[in-house]
Protein backbone atom coordinates (compact mmCIF):
# COMPACT_ATOMS: atom_id res chain seq x y z
CA UNK A 1 0.00 0.00 0.00
CA UNK A 2 2.93 2.29 0.75
CA UNK A 3 4.20 2.13 -2.85
CA UNK A 4 0.69 2.90 -4.09
CA UNK A 5 0.56 6.00 -1.89
CA UNK A 6 3.99 7.07 -3.12
CA UNK A 7 2.97 6.66 -6.76
CA UNK A 8 -0.11 8.77 -6.14
CA UNK A 9 1.94 11.43 -4.38
CA UNK A 10 4.45 11.56 -7.23
CA UNK A 11 1.63 11.70 -9.80
CA UNK A 12 -0.08 14.51 -7.90
CA UNK A 13 3.08 16.57 -7.52
CA UNK A 14 4.05 15.96 -11.17
CA UNK A 15 0.58 16.95 -12.38
CA UNK A 16 0.57 20.24 -10.49
CA UNK A 17 4.19 21.06 -11.19
CA UNK A 18 3.42 20.49 -14.87
CA UNK A 19 0.25 22.57 -14.76
CA UNK A 20 1.92 25.49 -12.99
CA UNK A 21 4.94 25.31 -15.32
CA UNK A 22 2.60 25.33 -18.34
CA UNK A 23 0.69 28.32 -16.94
CA UNK A 24 3.95 30.20 -16.46
CA UNK A 25 5.14 29.16 -19.92
CA UNK A 26 2.02 30.51 -21.58
CA UNK A 27 1.78 33.66 -19.42
CA UNK A 28 5.34 34.86 -19.06
CA UNK A 29 5.92 36.08 -22.66
CA UNK A 30 2.59 37.91 -22.56
CA UNK A 31 3.27 39.46 -19.14
CA UNK A 32 6.79 40.42 -20.18
CA UNK A 33 5.52 42.09 -23.36
CA UNK A 34 2.86 43.96 -21.37
CA UNK A 35 5.36 45.04 -18.75
CA UNK A 36 8.04 46.25 -21.12
CA UNK A 37 5.77 48.07 -23.60
CA UNK A 38 5.53 51.38 -21.75
CA UNK A 39 7.64 53.60 -19.56
CA UNK A 40 6.80 56.51 -17.28
CA UNK A 41 7.03 59.56 -19.50
CA UNK A 42 4.51 62.02 -18.15
CA UNK A 43 3.57 62.61 -14.55
CA UNK A 44 0.88 65.20 -14.06
CA UNK A 45 -2.72 65.83 -13.17
CA UNK A 46 -3.80 65.08 -16.75
CA UNK A 47 -1.52 62.08 -17.22
CA UNK A 48 -4.05 59.79 -18.90
CA UNK A 49 -6.18 62.31 -20.81
CA UNK A 50 -3.11 64.01 -22.31
CA UNK A 51 -1.72 60.67 -23.49
CA UNK A 52 -5.08 59.75 -25.05
CA UNK A 53 -5.36 63.16 -26.72
CA UNK A 54 -1.77 62.99 -27.94
CA UNK A 55 -2.52 59.59 -29.45
CA UNK A 56 -5.68 60.88 -31.16
CA UNK A 57 -4.56 64.34 -32.28
CA UNK A 58 -0.78 64.44 -32.06
CA UNK A 59 -1.03 67.62 -29.97
CA UNK A 60 0.54 68.02 -26.53
CA UNK A 61 -0.90 69.46 -23.29
CA UNK A 62 -4.30 69.34 -24.94
CA UNK A 63 -6.26 68.80 -21.72
CA UNK A 64 -4.96 72.01 -20.14
CA UNK A 65 -5.53 73.98 -23.37
CA UNK A 66 -9.06 72.65 -23.80
CA UNK A 67 -9.97 73.41 -20.18
CA UNK A 68 -8.54 76.93 -20.50
CA UNK A 69 -10.63 77.47 -23.61
CA UNK A 70 -13.84 76.12 -22.05
CA UNK A 71 -13.22 78.13 -18.86
CA UNK A 72 -13.13 81.30 -20.93
CA UNK A 73 -16.72 80.65 -22.09
CA UNK A 74 -19.95 81.16 -20.16
CA UNK A 75 -20.29 77.99 -18.08
CA UNK A 76 -24.09 77.80 -18.29
CA UNK A 77 -24.00 77.53 -22.08
CA UNK A 78 -23.77 74.08 -23.66
CA UNK A 79 -20.98 72.59 -25.74
CA UNK A 80 -22.14 70.81 -28.90
CA UNK A 81 -19.90 67.90 -29.86
CA UNK A 82 -20.00 66.29 -33.31
CA UNK A 83 -18.39 62.86 -33.64
CA UNK A 84 -18.60 59.71 -35.72
CA UNK A 85 -19.72 56.67 -33.75
CA UNK A 86 -18.15 54.32 -36.29
CA UNK A 87 -14.69 55.81 -35.74
CA UNK A 88 -13.09 54.91 -32.38
CA UNK A 89 -10.72 57.89 -32.55
CA UNK A 90 -13.64 60.26 -33.08
CA UNK A 91 -15.63 58.66 -30.23
CA UNK A 92 -12.60 58.93 -27.94
CA UNK A 93 -12.25 62.63 -28.74
CA UNK A 94 -15.97 63.23 -28.24
CA UNK A 95 -16.05 61.61 -24.82
CA UNK A 96 -12.77 63.23 -23.79
CA UNK A 97 -14.08 66.67 -24.75
CA UNK A 98 -17.30 66.04 -22.80
CA UNK A 99 -15.19 64.94 -19.80
CA UNK A 100 -13.03 68.08 -19.91
CA UNK A 101 -15.86 70.51 -20.68
CA UNK A 102 -17.32 70.42 -17.15
CA UNK A 103 -19.25 72.38 -15.86
CA UNK A 104 -20.70 73.10 -19.29
CA UNK A 105 -23.70 70.99 -20.29
CA UNK A 106 -22.76 68.89 -23.32
CA UNK A 107 -24.70 67.40 -26.21
CA UNK A 108 -23.06 64.73 -28.36
CA UNK A 109 -24.20 64.11 -31.94
CA UNK A 110 -23.18 60.95 -33.78
CA UNK A 111 -22.84 61.95 -37.44
CA UNK A 112 -22.64 58.29 -38.49
CA UNK A 113 -26.16 57.64 -37.24
CA UNK A 114 -29.03 58.65 -39.50
CA UNK A 115 -31.20 61.34 -37.96
CA UNK A 116 -28.70 62.35 -35.29
CA UNK A 117 -28.78 66.12 -34.86
CA UNK A 118 -32.00 66.49 -36.83
CA UNK A 119 -33.55 68.19 -33.80
CA UNK A 120 -30.89 70.90 -33.90
CA UNK A 121 -31.99 74.36 -34.98
CA UNK A 122 -30.29 77.70 -35.51
CA UNK A 123 -31.02 78.79 -31.92
CA UNK A 124 -29.06 75.81 -30.57
CA UNK A 125 -25.95 76.99 -32.42
CA UNK A 126 -26.38 80.59 -31.33
CA UNK A 127 -26.89 79.71 -27.66
CA UNK A 128 -24.00 77.21 -27.55
CA UNK A 129 -20.73 78.14 -25.86
CA UNK A 130 -18.70 76.22 -28.43
CA UNK A 131 -19.02 73.64 -31.17
CA UNK A 132 -16.53 70.80 -31.24
CA UNK A 133 -15.70 68.69 -34.29
CA UNK A 134 -14.05 65.34 -33.60
CA UNK A 135 -12.76 63.83 -36.86
CA UNK A 136 -15.74 65.56 -38.48
CA UNK A 137 -15.41 68.34 -41.07
CA UNK A 138 -16.61 71.76 -39.95
CA UNK A 139 -19.43 73.14 -42.16
CA UNK A 140 -18.37 75.94 -44.48
CA UNK A 141 -20.70 78.49 -42.90
CA UNK A 142 -18.83 78.30 -39.59
CA UNK A 143 -15.56 80.23 -39.33
CA UNK A 144 -12.42 78.25 -38.40
CA UNK A 145 -11.93 77.57 -34.72
CA UNK A 146 -8.99 76.52 -32.60
CA UNK A 147 -7.27 73.37 -33.84
CA UNK A 148 -5.82 70.69 -31.56
CA UNK A 149 -3.95 68.59 -34.06
CA UNK A 150 -5.80 67.62 -37.21
CA UNK A 151 -8.62 65.66 -35.66
CA UNK A 152 -10.05 68.11 -33.15
CA UNK A 153 -11.41 71.59 -33.80
CA UNK A 154 -13.25 73.80 -31.31
CA UNK A 155 -15.24 76.78 -32.55
CA UNK A 156 -16.08 79.18 -29.68
CA UNK A 157 -19.47 80.69 -30.53
CA UNK A 158 -19.00 84.11 -28.83
CA UNK A 159 -16.20 84.80 -31.34
CA UNK A 160 -18.51 83.80 -34.18
CA UNK A 161 -21.20 86.15 -32.85
CA UNK A 162 -18.71 89.04 -32.66
CA UNK A 163 -17.75 88.54 -36.30
Amino acid at each position, binding site marked *: MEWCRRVR*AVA*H*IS*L*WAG*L*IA*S*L*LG*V*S*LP*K*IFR*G*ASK*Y*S*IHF*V*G*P*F*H*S*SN*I*FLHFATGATDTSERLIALFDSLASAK*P*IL*IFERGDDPRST*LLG*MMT*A*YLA*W*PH*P*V*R*IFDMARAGSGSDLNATDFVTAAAIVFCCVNRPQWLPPGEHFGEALEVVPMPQVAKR
Partner: protein
Amino acid sequence: MNVIALLAAFATILSAGFGALLLLMPDSRRGNFAEQFALSWLCGTGIVSLFLWTFGFFVRGALLAGFIAIVCIALPLTAWKLTGQSAIHFQSVRWLRPIEFLLAALLALEIALIFYLAYVHTLGWDGLWNWEIKARYAYSNGGVLPVAYFQSEGRSFSHPAYPLAIPFTELWLYLWLGEANQFWAKTIFPMFYAAGAILLAALSARLTGRTWIGLIAASLLFFVPQIATEGGSAIVGYADFPLSVFYLATIGYLLCACRSDDEHSFRIYAVCLALLPWVKLEGMILWFIAALCGALVIWRKKKSPVHLFALLPGLFVIIAWHLYLSQMHVVSSSDFLPVSFATFQANIHRLGPILSAFFSEVADTKTWSLFWLLVAIGSGYFVQRYRDARSLVFFIAVLGPIGIYAFIYIFSNWPDYLKHVDLSVSRLLMHVAPLSCLTVSVALAARWPQPARSPHLNPATCESADRERTPDVEFARTKRA
Protein backbone atom coordinates in the same frame (compact mmCIF):
# COMPACT_ATOMS: atom_id res chain seq x y z
CA MET B 1 4.69 67.26 -1.08
CA ASN B 2 2.37 65.11 -3.19
CA VAL B 3 3.88 61.95 -1.75
CA ILE B 4 3.33 63.14 1.84
CA ALA B 5 -0.29 64.04 1.07
CA LEU B 6 -0.75 60.68 -0.60
CA LEU B 7 0.70 58.84 2.39
CA ALA B 8 -1.61 60.81 4.69
CA ALA B 9 -4.61 59.82 2.55
CA PHE B 10 -3.58 56.15 2.69
CA ALA B 11 -2.85 56.34 6.41
CA THR B 12 -6.33 57.71 7.16
CA ILE B 13 -7.97 55.03 4.99
CA LEU B 14 -6.00 52.28 6.75
CA SER B 15 -6.69 53.86 10.14
CA ALA B 16 -10.46 53.86 9.53
CA GLY B 17 -10.31 50.27 8.30
CA PHE B 18 -8.20 49.14 11.24
CA GLY B 19 -10.66 50.80 13.63
CA ALA B 20 -13.49 48.82 12.07
CA LEU B 21 -11.40 45.65 12.29
CA LEU B 22 -10.72 46.25 15.99
CA LEU B 23 -14.46 46.50 16.57
CA LEU B 24 -15.14 43.36 14.55
CA MET B 25 -12.32 41.25 15.99
CA PRO B 26 -11.20 42.63 19.32
CA ASP B 27 -8.58 39.93 19.98
CA SER B 28 -5.52 38.71 18.13
CA ARG B 29 -7.63 36.48 15.88
CA ARG B 30 -7.59 39.39 13.43
CA GLY B 31 -4.81 37.46 11.72
CA ASN B 32 -1.25 38.43 10.98
CA PHE B 33 -0.08 41.93 10.15
CA ALA B 34 -0.40 41.48 6.37
CA GLU B 35 -3.95 40.14 6.64
CA GLN B 36 -4.92 43.04 8.92
CA PHE B 37 -3.41 45.46 6.43
CA ALA B 38 -5.45 43.96 3.58
CA LEU B 39 -8.69 43.95 5.55
CA SER B 40 -8.02 47.48 6.82
CA TRP B 41 -7.62 48.64 3.24
CA LEU B 42 -10.92 47.06 2.14
CA CYS B 43 -12.87 48.31 5.17
CA GLY B 44 -11.13 51.69 5.02
CA THR B 45 -12.00 52.41 1.39
CA GLY B 46 -15.60 51.41 2.11
CA ILE B 47 -15.85 53.59 5.22
CA VAL B 48 -14.17 56.65 3.71
CA SER B 49 -16.20 56.55 0.49
CA LEU B 50 -19.49 55.97 2.34
CA PHE B 51 -18.70 58.77 4.81
CA LEU B 52 -17.78 61.17 1.99
CA TRP B 53 -21.11 60.44 0.35
CA THR B 54 -23.30 60.64 3.46
CA PHE B 55 -21.58 63.57 5.20
CA GLY B 56 -21.53 65.36 1.85
CA PHE B 57 -25.25 65.96 2.37
CA PHE B 58 -24.40 68.27 5.29
CA VAL B 59 -20.92 69.77 4.79
CA ARG B 60 -18.51 70.42 1.93
CA GLY B 61 -14.94 71.32 1.09
CA ALA B 62 -12.27 71.51 3.77
CA LEU B 63 -14.86 70.96 6.52
CA LEU B 64 -15.96 67.67 4.93
CA ALA B 65 -12.36 66.47 4.49
CA GLY B 66 -11.36 67.58 7.98
CA PHE B 67 -14.37 65.96 9.63
CA ILE B 68 -13.80 62.62 7.90
CA ALA B 69 -10.07 62.72 8.67
CA ILE B 70 -10.93 63.16 12.37
CA VAL B 71 -13.40 60.24 12.19
CA CYS B 72 -10.74 58.07 10.50
CA ILE B 73 -8.22 58.79 13.25
CA ALA B 74 -10.77 58.57 16.07
CA LEU B 75 -12.19 55.22 14.95
CA PRO B 76 -9.29 52.96 16.06
CA LEU B 77 -8.87 54.94 19.29
CA THR B 78 -12.57 54.61 20.08
CA ALA B 79 -12.53 50.92 19.19
CA TRP B 80 -9.51 50.42 21.42
CA LYS B 81 -11.30 52.13 24.33
CA LEU B 82 -14.60 50.33 23.70
CA THR B 83 -13.03 46.90 23.59
CA GLY B 84 -11.26 47.66 26.86
CA GLN B 85 -7.83 46.47 25.77
CA SER B 86 -4.76 47.76 27.53
CA ALA B 87 -2.88 47.76 24.22
CA ILE B 88 -3.57 46.84 20.61
CA HIS B 89 -2.21 43.33 20.16
CA PHE B 90 -0.71 42.11 16.94
CA GLN B 91 -0.22 38.44 16.40
CA SER B 92 3.31 37.53 17.34
CA VAL B 93 5.63 37.46 14.37
CA ARG B 94 7.18 34.08 13.71
CA TRP B 95 10.20 33.19 11.66
CA LEU B 96 9.28 32.15 8.14
CA ARG B 97 10.57 28.88 6.77
CA PRO B 98 12.99 29.34 3.86
CA ILE B 99 10.36 28.29 1.31
CA GLU B 100 7.81 30.70 2.82
CA PHE B 101 10.37 33.46 2.88
CA LEU B 102 11.18 32.94 -0.81
CA LEU B 103 7.52 32.84 -1.80
CA ALA B 104 6.74 35.92 0.31
CA ALA B 105 9.64 37.72 -1.40
CA LEU B 106 8.26 36.69 -4.81
CA LEU B 107 4.82 37.98 -3.85
CA ALA B 108 6.30 41.28 -2.65
CA LEU B 109 8.17 41.59 -5.96
CA GLU B 110 4.95 40.94 -7.90
CA ILE B 111 3.12 43.63 -5.92
CA ALA B 112 5.97 46.07 -6.62
CA LEU B 113 5.71 45.19 -10.34
CA ILE B 114 1.97 45.87 -10.27
CA PHE B 115 2.69 49.31 -8.79
CA TYR B 116 5.20 49.91 -11.59
CA LEU B 117 2.79 48.71 -14.29
CA ALA B 118 0.02 50.93 -12.90
CA TYR B 119 2.31 53.94 -13.12
CA VAL B 120 3.43 53.29 -16.70
CA HIS B 121 -0.09 52.61 -18.01
CA THR B 122 -2.77 55.22 -18.43
CA LEU B 123 -6.13 54.85 -16.79
CA GLY B 124 -8.30 52.81 -19.16
CA TRP B 125 -11.39 54.25 -20.83
CA ASP B 126 -13.70 53.10 -18.06
CA GLY B 127 -11.13 54.04 -15.45
CA LEU B 128 -11.22 57.58 -16.72
CA TRP B 129 -14.80 58.01 -17.89
CA ASN B 130 -16.71 55.85 -15.42
CA TRP B 131 -14.74 56.39 -12.23
CA GLU B 132 -12.18 59.21 -12.29
CA ILE B 133 -14.73 61.54 -13.87
CA LYS B 134 -16.92 61.27 -10.74
CA ALA B 135 -13.96 61.95 -8.44
CA ARG B 136 -12.94 64.96 -10.53
CA TYR B 137 -16.42 66.50 -10.70
CA ALA B 138 -17.02 65.88 -7.00
CA TYR B 139 -13.67 67.48 -6.18
CA SER B 140 -14.54 70.56 -8.23
CA ASN B 141 -17.81 70.79 -6.26
CA GLY B 142 -16.38 70.64 -2.73
CA GLY B 143 -16.48 66.84 -2.42
CA VAL B 144 -20.07 66.35 -3.54
CA LEU B 145 -21.17 65.07 -6.95
CA PRO B 146 -23.12 67.88 -8.65
CA VAL B 147 -26.80 67.18 -9.35
CA ALA B 148 -26.26 68.39 -12.93
CA TYR B 149 -23.88 65.48 -13.53
CA PHE B 150 -26.59 62.90 -12.81
CA GLN B 151 -28.93 64.61 -15.25
CA SER B 152 -26.40 65.27 -18.03
CA GLU B 153 -27.56 63.38 -21.14
CA GLY B 154 -24.28 64.20 -22.86
CA ARG B 155 -22.32 62.45 -20.12
CA SER B 156 -24.53 59.38 -19.84
CA PHE B 157 -21.61 57.40 -21.34
CA SER B 158 -19.95 57.75 -17.92
CA HIS B 159 -22.75 55.77 -16.19
CA PRO B 160 -23.75 58.29 -13.50
CA ALA B 161 -25.73 55.54 -11.73
CA TYR B 162 -22.59 53.56 -10.85
CA PRO B 163 -21.85 53.54 -7.11
CA LEU B 164 -19.07 55.52 -5.52
CA ALA B 165 -16.60 53.31 -3.61
CA ILE B 166 -13.85 53.67 -6.21
CA PRO B 167 -14.39 57.29 -7.32
CA PHE B 168 -14.77 58.52 -3.75
CA THR B 169 -11.57 56.74 -2.70
CA GLU B 170 -9.92 58.68 -5.54
CA LEU B 171 -11.71 61.79 -4.30
CA TRP B 172 -10.20 61.24 -0.85
CA LEU B 173 -6.74 61.31 -2.45
CA TYR B 174 -7.67 64.47 -4.34
CA LEU B 175 -8.84 66.19 -1.16
CA TRP B 176 -5.45 65.49 0.41
CA LEU B 177 -3.46 66.35 -2.72
CA GLY B 178 -5.35 69.61 -3.23
CA GLU B 179 -5.95 68.85 -6.91
CA ALA B 180 -7.60 66.27 -9.16
CA ASN B 181 -4.70 64.18 -10.40
CA GLN B 182 -5.08 61.27 -12.81
CA PHE B 183 -1.55 60.02 -12.12
CA TRP B 184 -1.84 59.65 -8.35
CA ALA B 185 -5.42 58.35 -8.60
CA LYS B 186 -3.96 55.18 -10.14
CA THR B 187 -2.20 54.37 -6.87
CA ILE B 188 -5.29 52.89 -5.24
CA PHE B 189 -5.53 50.02 -7.75
CA PRO B 190 -2.18 48.36 -6.93
CA MET B 191 -3.23 48.71 -3.29
CA PHE B 192 -6.30 46.64 -4.12
CA TYR B 193 -4.03 44.13 -5.86
CA ALA B 194 -1.82 43.92 -2.77
CA ALA B 195 -4.89 43.46 -0.56
CA GLY B 196 -6.28 40.79 -2.89
CA ALA B 197 -3.03 38.82 -3.11
CA ILE B 198 -2.51 38.94 0.66
CA LEU B 199 -6.10 37.88 1.36
CA LEU B 200 -5.82 35.04 -1.14
CA ALA B 201 -2.67 33.84 0.63
CA ALA B 202 -4.26 34.25 4.07
CA LEU B 203 -7.55 32.56 3.16
CA SER B 204 -5.73 29.72 1.41
CA ALA B 205 -3.58 29.27 4.50
CA ARG B 206 -6.68 29.25 6.71
CA LEU B 207 -8.41 26.70 4.49
CA THR B 208 -5.48 24.37 3.82
CA GLY B 209 -3.50 24.91 7.01
CA ARG B 210 -0.34 25.75 5.10
CA THR B 211 1.10 29.21 4.58
CA TRP B 212 3.42 28.26 1.71
CA ILE B 213 0.51 26.91 -0.32
CA GLY B 214 -1.36 30.18 0.18
CA LEU B 215 1.70 32.08 -0.99
CA ILE B 216 1.96 29.93 -4.14
CA ALA B 217 -1.72 30.53 -4.98
CA ALA B 218 -1.34 34.28 -4.42
CA SER B 219 1.82 34.37 -6.56
CA LEU B 220 0.02 32.66 -9.44
CA LEU B 221 -2.46 35.54 -9.68
CA PHE B 222 0.24 37.74 -11.21
CA PHE B 223 0.70 35.28 -14.07
CA VAL B 224 -2.88 35.65 -15.30
CA PRO B 225 -2.64 38.27 -18.08
CA GLN B 226 -6.24 39.42 -17.57
CA ILE B 227 -5.39 40.32 -13.98
CA ALA B 228 -1.89 41.73 -14.44
CA THR B 229 -1.58 43.42 -17.82
CA GLU B 230 -4.65 43.13 -20.07
CA GLY B 231 -7.33 45.77 -20.67
CA GLY B 232 -9.56 45.88 -17.61
CA SER B 233 -6.83 44.42 -15.40
CA ALA B 234 -5.81 45.51 -11.92
CA ILE B 235 -3.63 48.35 -13.24
CA VAL B 236 -5.92 50.43 -15.45
CA GLY B 237 -8.32 51.91 -12.93
CA TYR B 238 -11.35 49.70 -13.48
CA ALA B 239 -13.59 48.66 -10.58
CA ASP B 240 -13.70 45.00 -11.59
CA PHE B 241 -10.55 43.88 -9.81
CA PRO B 242 -11.38 45.72 -6.56
CA LEU B 243 -14.85 44.15 -6.75
CA SER B 244 -13.26 40.72 -7.15
CA VAL B 245 -11.14 41.36 -4.04
CA PHE B 246 -14.23 42.30 -1.99
CA TYR B 247 -15.94 39.17 -3.32
CA LEU B 248 -12.94 36.99 -2.44
CA ALA B 249 -12.99 38.38 1.11
CA THR B 250 -16.78 37.92 1.40
CA ILE B 251 -16.91 34.29 0.28
CA GLY B 252 -13.48 33.38 1.66
CA TYR B 253 -14.39 34.41 5.20
CA LEU B 254 -17.81 32.79 4.83
CA LEU B 255 -16.01 29.52 4.03
CA CYS B 256 -13.93 30.05 7.17
CA ALA B 257 -17.12 30.81 9.11
CA CYS B 258 -18.42 27.35 8.22
CA ARG B 259 -16.29 26.10 11.11
CA SER B 260 -18.87 25.92 13.86
CA ASP B 261 -18.04 28.88 16.12
CA ASP B 262 -15.95 31.13 13.90
CA GLU B 263 -17.97 34.26 14.60
CA HIS B 264 -15.15 36.60 13.69
CA SER B 265 -14.92 35.35 10.14
CA PHE B 266 -18.67 35.73 9.84
CA ARG B 267 -18.41 39.38 10.91
CA ILE B 268 -15.82 40.09 8.21
CA TYR B 269 -18.10 38.32 5.74
CA ALA B 270 -20.95 40.64 6.78
CA VAL B 271 -18.87 43.81 6.35
CA CYS B 272 -17.47 42.83 2.94
CA LEU B 273 -20.94 41.70 1.86
CA ALA B 274 -22.32 45.16 2.67
CA LEU B 275 -19.65 46.82 0.55
CA LEU B 276 -20.15 44.70 -2.59
CA PRO B 277 -23.04 46.79 -4.03
CA TRP B 278 -21.09 49.97 -3.22
CA VAL B 279 -18.20 49.06 -5.58
CA LYS B 280 -20.02 48.44 -8.86
CA LEU B 281 -23.55 47.74 -10.10
CA GLU B 282 -22.63 44.09 -10.69
CA GLY B 283 -21.84 44.06 -6.98
CA MET B 284 -25.59 43.82 -6.40
CA ILE B 285 -25.62 40.47 -8.20
CA LEU B 286 -22.60 39.36 -6.19
CA TRP B 287 -24.33 40.60 -3.01
CA PHE B 288 -27.40 38.50 -3.87
CA ILE B 289 -25.32 35.37 -4.44
CA ALA B 290 -23.15 35.95 -1.36
CA ALA B 291 -26.25 36.64 0.78
CA LEU B 292 -27.78 33.41 -0.50
CA CYS B 293 -24.60 31.57 0.45
CA GLY B 294 -24.64 33.24 3.88
CA ALA B 295 -28.24 32.14 4.46
CA LEU B 296 -27.27 28.63 3.38
CA VAL B 297 -24.42 28.52 5.90
CA ILE B 298 -26.67 29.83 8.68
CA TRP B 299 -29.21 27.11 7.89
CA ARG B 300 -26.81 24.20 7.36
CA LYS B 301 -24.59 25.06 10.32
CA LYS B 302 -27.65 25.70 12.51
CA LYS B 303 -26.41 29.17 13.42
CA SER B 304 -28.78 31.51 15.22
CA PRO B 305 -31.27 33.29 12.88
CA VAL B 306 -29.90 36.52 14.38
CA HIS B 307 -27.04 36.06 11.90
CA LEU B 308 -29.48 36.91 9.11
CA PHE B 309 -29.19 40.53 10.25
CA ALA B 310 -25.74 40.45 8.65
CA LEU B 311 -27.48 40.63 5.29
CA LEU B 312 -29.21 43.92 6.11
CA PRO B 313 -26.37 46.49 5.78
CA GLY B 314 -25.82 45.53 2.13
CA LEU B 315 -29.53 45.71 1.46
CA PHE B 316 -29.56 49.13 3.11
CA VAL B 317 -26.70 50.32 0.84
CA ILE B 318 -28.60 49.10 -2.25
CA ILE B 319 -31.86 50.79 -1.22
CA ALA B 320 -30.18 54.03 -0.11
CA TRP B 321 -28.21 54.34 -3.36
CA HIS B 322 -31.28 53.72 -5.51
CA LEU B 323 -33.37 56.18 -3.51
CA TYR B 324 -30.62 58.74 -3.99
CA LEU B 325 -30.49 58.07 -7.73
CA SER B 326 -34.26 58.44 -8.04
CA GLN B 327 -34.07 61.76 -6.18
CA MET B 328 -31.31 62.92 -8.54
CA HIS B 329 -33.43 61.96 -11.58
CA VAL B 330 -30.39 60.19 -13.00
CA VAL B 331 -30.29 59.61 -16.76
CA SER B 332 -30.89 55.93 -17.40
CA SER B 333 -28.48 53.73 -19.32
CA SER B 334 -29.73 52.34 -22.63
CA ASP B 335 -27.40 49.32 -22.60
CA PHE B 336 -30.16 46.92 -21.48
CA LEU B 337 -33.83 46.54 -22.30
CA PRO B 338 -36.38 46.56 -19.47
CA VAL B 339 -36.69 43.03 -18.07
CA SER B 340 -40.01 41.50 -19.10
CA PHE B 341 -41.27 38.06 -20.04
CA ALA B 342 -42.06 39.24 -23.59
CA THR B 343 -38.46 40.41 -24.13
CA PHE B 344 -37.16 37.21 -22.58
CA GLN B 345 -39.29 35.13 -24.95
CA ALA B 346 -38.25 37.19 -27.96
CA ASN B 347 -34.52 36.98 -27.14
CA ILE B 348 -34.16 33.51 -25.62
CA HIS B 349 -32.41 32.38 -28.81
CA ARG B 350 -29.45 34.48 -27.72
CA LEU B 351 -28.66 32.22 -24.78
CA GLY B 352 -26.72 29.65 -26.82
CA PRO B 353 -24.38 32.15 -28.52
CA ILE B 354 -23.92 34.00 -25.19
CA LEU B 355 -22.91 30.82 -23.36
CA SER B 356 -20.66 29.95 -26.27
CA ALA B 357 -18.99 33.37 -25.94
CA PHE B 358 -18.43 32.75 -22.21
CA PHE B 359 -16.88 29.32 -22.92
CA SER B 360 -14.67 30.81 -25.65
CA GLU B 361 -13.47 33.41 -23.16
CA VAL B 362 -12.66 30.78 -20.53
CA ALA B 363 -10.64 28.88 -23.12
CA ASP B 364 -8.79 31.97 -24.35
CA THR B 365 -5.21 31.38 -23.25
CA LYS B 366 -4.10 34.83 -24.43
CA THR B 367 -6.27 36.43 -21.77
CA TRP B 368 -6.39 33.81 -19.04
CA SER B 369 -3.44 31.54 -19.81
CA LEU B 370 -4.26 28.12 -18.30
CA PHE B 371 -5.88 29.65 -15.22
CA TRP B 372 -9.35 28.17 -15.74
CA LEU B 373 -7.91 24.74 -16.53
CA LEU B 374 -6.15 24.80 -13.16
CA VAL B 375 -9.37 25.95 -11.51
CA ALA B 376 -11.38 23.19 -13.22
CA ILE B 377 -8.95 20.50 -12.06
CA GLY B 378 -8.68 22.09 -8.62
CA SER B 379 -12.47 22.05 -8.27
CA GLY B 380 -12.38 18.24 -8.14
CA TYR B 381 -9.96 18.39 -5.23
CA PHE B 382 -12.13 21.02 -3.51
CA VAL B 383 -15.20 18.75 -3.61
CA GLN B 384 -13.13 15.80 -2.44
CA ARG B 385 -11.68 17.75 0.49
CA TYR B 386 -14.80 19.59 1.65
CA ARG B 387 -17.74 17.21 1.64
CA ASP B 388 -19.96 19.70 3.44
CA ALA B 389 -21.65 23.09 2.97
CA ARG B 390 -18.35 24.63 1.90
CA SER B 391 -18.36 22.92 -1.49
CA LEU B 392 -21.93 23.99 -2.13
CA VAL B 393 -21.20 27.58 -1.04
CA PHE B 394 -18.07 27.71 -3.17
CA PHE B 395 -19.69 26.46 -6.36
CA ILE B 396 -22.77 28.67 -5.97
CA ALA B 397 -20.42 31.62 -5.40
CA VAL B 398 -18.36 30.92 -8.52
CA LEU B 399 -20.97 29.66 -10.97
CA GLY B 400 -23.94 31.75 -9.76
CA PRO B 401 -22.64 35.15 -10.90
CA ILE B 402 -21.45 33.73 -14.25
CA GLY B 403 -24.91 32.25 -14.86
CA ILE B 404 -26.68 35.51 -13.99
CA TYR B 405 -24.27 37.59 -16.10
CA ALA B 406 -24.88 35.30 -19.09
CA PHE B 407 -28.64 35.50 -18.53
CA ILE B 408 -28.63 39.31 -18.39
CA TYR B 409 -27.23 39.62 -21.90
CA ILE B 410 -30.52 38.20 -23.18
CA PHE B 411 -31.77 41.73 -22.47
CA SER B 412 -28.88 43.54 -24.18
CA ASN B 413 -30.04 46.58 -26.13
CA TRP B 414 -27.00 46.64 -28.38
CA PRO B 415 -27.73 45.94 -32.05
CA ASP B 416 -24.91 43.38 -31.91
CA TYR B 417 -25.43 41.78 -28.50
CA LEU B 418 -22.41 39.50 -28.97
CA LYS B 419 -20.19 42.56 -29.30
CA HIS B 420 -21.67 43.72 -25.98
CA VAL B 421 -20.79 40.35 -24.42
CA ASP B 422 -17.35 40.37 -26.01
CA LEU B 423 -16.52 43.79 -24.56
CA SER B 424 -17.28 42.86 -20.98
CA VAL B 425 -17.01 39.09 -20.56
CA SER B 426 -13.35 39.06 -19.52
CA ARG B 427 -13.99 41.66 -16.83
CA LEU B 428 -17.07 39.80 -15.61
CA LEU B 429 -15.14 36.55 -15.26
CA MET B 430 -12.52 38.47 -13.29
CA HIS B 431 -15.08 39.00 -10.51
CA VAL B 432 -14.80 35.34 -9.55
CA ALA B 433 -11.17 34.73 -10.59
CA PRO B 434 -9.35 35.38 -7.27
CA LEU B 435 -12.01 33.36 -5.43
CA SER B 436 -11.64 30.50 -7.92
CA CYS B 437 -7.92 30.48 -7.18
CA LEU B 438 -8.77 28.93 -3.79
CA THR B 439 -9.35 25.64 -5.63
CA VAL B 440 -5.70 25.66 -6.73
CA SER B 441 -4.48 26.02 -3.15
CA VAL B 442 -6.84 23.27 -1.97
CA ALA B 443 -5.58 21.03 -4.78
CA LEU B 444 -1.94 21.75 -3.91
CA ALA B 445 -2.67 20.83 -0.30
CA ALA B 446 -4.32 17.55 -1.25
CA ARG B 447 -1.29 15.48 -0.26
CA TRP B 448 -1.42 16.76 3.30
CA PRO B 449 -4.25 15.91 5.71
CA GLN B 450 -6.33 18.82 6.95
CA PRO B 451 -6.59 19.47 10.68
CA ALA B 452 -9.86 17.91 11.86
CA ARG B 453 -11.04 21.09 13.45
CA SER B 454 -9.93 24.67 13.66
CA PRO B 455 -7.23 24.53 16.32
CA HIS B 456 -8.10 27.90 17.80
CA LEU B 457 -11.43 26.54 19.02
CA ASN B 458 -9.78 23.91 21.13
CA PRO B 459 -6.10 24.20 21.84
CA ALA B 460 -5.93 20.44 22.42
CA THR B 461 -6.62 19.73 18.77
CA CYS B 462 -3.48 21.60 17.95
CA GLU B 463 -1.48 18.53 18.93
CA SER B 464 -2.63 16.75 15.83
CA ALA B 465 -1.68 19.69 13.71
CA ASP B 466 1.48 20.73 15.41
CA ARG B 467 3.34 21.08 12.13
CA GLU B 468 0.75 23.62 10.98
CA ARG B 469 1.97 27.20 10.93
CA THR B 470 -1.31 28.96 10.23
CA PRO B 471 -2.54 32.01 12.16
CA ASP B 472 -5.06 29.75 13.87
CA VAL B 473 -2.35 27.43 15.10
CA GLU B 474 -0.17 30.30 16.16
CA PHE B 475 -3.08 31.61 18.19
CA ALA B 476 -3.71 28.22 19.73
CA ARG B 477 -0.03 27.95 20.64
CA THR B 478 -0.16 31.33 22.33
CA LYS B 479 -3.26 30.25 24.22
CA ARG B 480 -1.65 27.01 25.35
CA ALA B 481 1.43 28.86 26.48
